[in-house]
């Protein structure tokens, strides 16, 4: 909502309130001033008279003018095509500061130029408010403009300040300047005098027919004015509209806009001659293409509320009138419309057609139920004044205002109890008085408020408490902390675990990322651990953000690719975020990615290569910390192939029989597609893990007896897996086995094709005694026997 300082000044005494103070007061009271700008600016301006104007000898478009400023005659070079001798013009004297810079005397192509003749936009006037003629050249003032007058902005009516007030949805009433003025008066504690809009005039009977065939138009005021004279609006009206950001057109159209601004009630004026039969019907259910008064064709659907005449559409209700019946130079009589339309319908239509008119905004946000009558009366009054209105027929009302006055009782003690304040009865009452709530004393604690029709936001005593505190001042509230029984707070277990994970991952050198949850179909399809059909956004901004992700890995690869493209070649990243599936399941996933190498120091050429086993070790350690022993974990080859992971260097991770994750080295195709290095990536479902019981810490005495270590080396088929070897050793060794680990795999010379050499380390230990050879030998022999027997390995001589 745009409002000017001068407009508000008409209604109250602002002599002791500077424009800046006013802005501050409005903002603190809930009418946030988002912008404040001068309507026009310029120092050192003067009104001049162009005595002569001749073409510049060295230019085909410049003119050399002699201009009398009342203080002498100056030569000014002017480039405007419309400059001519005899004009009264705005002269910027040397030293004048305009929005575009300072004006200085100078020589323009050999001719002295001692100032500038100005166009309005050069003074910073909003270009949207200017005609094409004004935009194309200098401003030509009326012949009676006082030459030598230095108060040029005041003369132009442009010495004003425009406030851009951001209104919260509950204060749509302030889309009316009158309501806004009352609000400002209440905030400043100043009396407000609004214009008296009653008029004296004999009205004649009417045969206007107004019908509403839809409940979406519960109220329609109509009135015929048989005679109006179309002419330009007076300067004050043009300036007022200008301040509000509305372009002046002619007196009648300008009145409809001005009254809408004043009362908040949108109006539409129809050309009487274009409404045959003086009949207007509001209806829904049309489906057609309609040309509005902006000349553009709009598709109309059944839900749109339309104004019709004899079955023919003449306006999109509440949004824009029609081209056929608009007011123009030929108009001699009008029909006034002041109606109420359903806000949701108007919002839907205005959004669909992308027509955000001033009227639509007001309908959408809700109107003063009594505003229609007010607006009609005010219009007639102004039409009488400014458009020589005559032949004024009686007003027709279709529907009813359906307005019940609201009286609310406010208990001062309850208000104080809610606010934590000690406002006195009289203070609270005075606040209500300032707001024009006509407070009445009910008893020592209770005040009855009569809520004005336009304050539809006030519905309960809590609303009155807000009115109280915003007028009496928030600084009266003493800061306290809630006094209540102590309750145990804290993080839920899964959030505590998340923090532990974050810490551990940080410890491993990995940094956290947070990426967008909305992704494309392609990214969904590339997800490594999707939990089901993804959630599809019906009204997505773009296909890039069409789905809520069901797996994190695609976003991670995108992030990796983004960083590699910026030469961040070494990285270790993780993200913990929620993923969703359409059936309603939500899971928390962890995704990790590491570059193929992590440098430790350049000058010693030390680095760590990150491969499948790095990722495996990292995930196993994380899970161990969370209470899931590696004994419960196993890996299997990918159950289905994809183009993200190299199937020969990747695995699915199982906790017991449940798949909880997948990890591995990226597929060469994926590497190429996203311009990646040979990175490793993994994703696990924390939710799936937490659903399983975690192991607890149990006390086990530190073993006092020495461990005995054996190394074994053997040759076996390539097809024998590490897991098979370890399982075989475990089974054969039984209770005495403390640990078994593969520490080397060798292929190459001396090893036949299709075979590999494996070295393992076996540790035996007992909790009861020091093991003797006689204890170990039978066990170790059994290990060798089973490896040989079951896995067909050939022991190498040690």
């Amino acid at each position, binding site marked *: 909502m745009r409002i000017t300082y001068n407009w508000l000044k008409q209604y109250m005494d602002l002599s002791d309130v500077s424009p800046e103070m006013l802005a501050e007061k409005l903002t*603190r009271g*809930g009418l946030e001033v988002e912008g404040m700008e001068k309507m026009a600016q310029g120092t050192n301006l003067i009104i001049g008279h162009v005595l002569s104007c001749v073409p510049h000898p060295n230019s085909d478009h410049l003119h050399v003018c002699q201009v009398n400023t009342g203080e002498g005659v100056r030569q000014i070079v002017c480039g405007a095509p419309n400059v001519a001798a005899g004009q009264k013009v705005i002269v910027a004297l040397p030293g004048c500061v305009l929005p575009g810079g300072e004006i200085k005397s100078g020589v323009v192509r050999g001719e002295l130029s001692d100032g500038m003749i100005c166009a309005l936009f050069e003074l910073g006037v909003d270009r949207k408010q200017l005609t094409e003629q004004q935009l194309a050249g200098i401003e030509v003032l009326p012949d009676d403009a006082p030459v030598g007058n230095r108060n040029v902005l005041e003369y132009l009516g442009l010495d004003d300040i425009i406030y851009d007030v951001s209104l*919260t*949805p*509950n204060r749509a009433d302030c889309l009316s300047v009158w309501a806004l003025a009352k609000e400002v008066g209440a905030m400043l504690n100043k009396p407000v005098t609004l214009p008296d809009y009653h008029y004296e005039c004999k009205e004649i009977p009417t045969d206007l027919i107004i019908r509403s065939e839809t409940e979406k138009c519960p109220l329609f005021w109509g009135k015929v004015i048989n005679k109006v004279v179309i002419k330009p609006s007076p300067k004050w009206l043009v300036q007022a509209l200008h301040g509000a950001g509305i372009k002046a057109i002619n007196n009648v159209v300008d009145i409809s806009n001005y009254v809408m601004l004043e009362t908040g009630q949108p109006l539409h004026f129809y050309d009487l001659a274009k409404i045959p039969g003086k009949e207007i019907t509001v209806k829904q259910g049309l489906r057609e293409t309609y040309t509005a008064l902006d000349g553009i064709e709009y598709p109309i659907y059944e839900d749109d509320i339309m104004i019709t005449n004899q079955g023919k559409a003449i306006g999109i209700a509440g949004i824009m009138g029609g081209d056929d019946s608009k007011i123009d130079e030929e108009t001699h009589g009008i029909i006034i419309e002041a109606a109420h339309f359903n*806000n*949701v319908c108007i*919002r839907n239509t205005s959004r669909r057609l992308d027509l955000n008119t001033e009227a639509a905004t007001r309908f*959408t946000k*809700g109107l003063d139920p009594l505003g229609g009558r007010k607006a009609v009366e005010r219009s007639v009054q102004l039409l009488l004044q400014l458009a020589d209105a005559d032949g004024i027929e009686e007003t027709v009302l279709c529907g009813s205002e359906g307005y019940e006055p609201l009286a609310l009782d406010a208990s001062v003690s309850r208000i104080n109890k*809610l*606010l*934590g304040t000690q406002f006195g009865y009289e203070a609270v009452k005075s606040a209500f008085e300032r707001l024009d709530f006509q407070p009445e004393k009910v008893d020592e604690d209770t005040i009855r408020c009569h809520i004005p029709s336009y304050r539809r936001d006030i519905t*309960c005593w*809590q609303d009155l*408490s*807000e009115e109280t*505190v915003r007028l009496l001042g*928030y*600084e009266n*509230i*003493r*800061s*306290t902390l*809630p006094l*209540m*029984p102590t*309750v*145990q*707070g*804290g993080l*839920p277990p899964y959030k505590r675990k998340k923090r532990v994970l974050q810490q551990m991952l*940080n410890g491993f050198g990995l*940094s*956290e*990322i*947070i*990426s*967008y*949850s*909305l992704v494309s179909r392609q990214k969904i399809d590339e997800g490594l651990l999707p939990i089901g059909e993804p959630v*599809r*956004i*019906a*009204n997505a901004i773009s296909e890039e*953000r069409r789905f*809520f992700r069901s797996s994190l890995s695609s976003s991670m690869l995108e992030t990796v690719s983004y960083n590699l493209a910026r030469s*961040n070649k070494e990285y*270790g*990243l993780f993200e913990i975020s*929620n993923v*969703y599936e359409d059936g*309603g399941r*939500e899971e928390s996933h962890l995704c990790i990615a590491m570059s193929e190498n*992590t*440098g*430790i*120091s*350049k*000058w010693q050429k030390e680095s760590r290569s990150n491969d499948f086993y790095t990722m495996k070790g990292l995930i196993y350690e994380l899970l161990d910390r969370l209470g899931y022993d590696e004994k419960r974990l196993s890996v299997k080859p990918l159950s289905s192939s994809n183009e993200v992971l190299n199937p020969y260097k990747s695995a699915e991770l199982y906790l017991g029989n449940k798949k909880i994750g997948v990890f591995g080295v990226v597929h060469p195709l994926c590497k190429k597609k996203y311009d990646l290095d040979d990175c490793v990536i993994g994703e696990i479902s924390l939710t799936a893990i937490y659903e399983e019981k975690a192991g607890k810490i149990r006390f086990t005495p530190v073993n006092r007896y020495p461990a005995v270590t054996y190394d074994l080396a053997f040759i076996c088929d390539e097809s024998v897996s590490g897991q098979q070897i370890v399982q075989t050793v475990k089974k054969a060794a039984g209770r005495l086995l403390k640990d078994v680990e593969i520490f080397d795999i060798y292929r190459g010379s001396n090893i036949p094709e299709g075979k590999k050499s494996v070295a393992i380390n076996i540790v035996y230990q007992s909790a009861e005694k020091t093991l003797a050879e006689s204890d170990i030998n039978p066990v170790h022999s059994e290990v060798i026997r089973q490896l040989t027997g079951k896995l067909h390995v050939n022991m190498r001589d040690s």
Partner: protein
Amino acid sequence: MEHNWELLKKEYADRIRETASAADLEKLRVELLGKKGTISAMMQEMKSILPEKRKEFGMAVNSLKQNVEALISERAATVKNEEMLRKMEADKIDITLPYKKYHYGTLHPLTVVQQEIEDIFVAMGYSVVEGPEVEYDLYNFEKANIPADHPSRDMQDTFYVDVERLLRTQTTAIQMRVLENQGTHLPIKVICPGKVFRRDDDDATHSHQFIQIEGLVVGEGITLGDLKGTLELLARSMFGAEREIRLRQSYFPFTEPSQEIDVSCHVCGGKGCPVCKGTGWIEILGSGMVHPNVLRTAGIDPDKYSGFALGVGVERVAMLKYGIDDIRNFYNNNIRFLEGYKRFE
């Protein structure tokens, strides 16, 4: 044979002291104490000494021998130590050469801020509660006193999944779930952090995805003063002990009265600077007393109980705290950006 014992003692002591290496010392030891050494030879002399002088002579030789032995072992320790020191010196390193990298990962700056806020409230006894990001209209709007035709639905452009489901536009949805679950088991004292989504085009100050944290307290006798005090505490914890706050009337459908909260600028201290656009104040929070309709919906008697709610945007706080000028930085995840926030503050 006559010996000047004192002179010998001194001579040997000098010679022992002058040895520079373990090898020299060993050579000297053999010369003096070895089987064919000087002192052993003196022992041999005993036989040719007059019996009455033998005792005296024996004692003198023994004393000399013990003295030499003690000095040699002492010298041996010293020499060994000196040799070690020489060897160490030869192994001297250039301490100005580069170090080996220890890389501790970083938390995302939004996580840092979120945890900080969570911890402030947890310390005051608040529980942290989260909720689904794919949410029902019921919790995001209906229960929050925003029926279908409510104009404030325009305030937040929403991503819809279908008629009932949407991506939550505000963590208020979690509060509504807390109210539904906890209902009349008062008091309620929670904060609800989480991602929210708005159908905005991404630019320097708008993001279709961002993180909010909302707080909710419901109990008997909760006042706007309690809210003000809590907000003051939060502002001072986040932006410094000298911060002041001011309340500005505003509007949220689920609170009444409602206020925006401005915090005195942490950069200029309130004098006015580009960060606060010259006003001395920065808007960081929305808040208010829980609307009676919201309490009633949860089965709580608004005449008996009251509550407050507050909400803060994590990105906004992080941007102000660290002077970040473009919200998209948080979601691009450039490592060089992320690692700029690794210091403990």
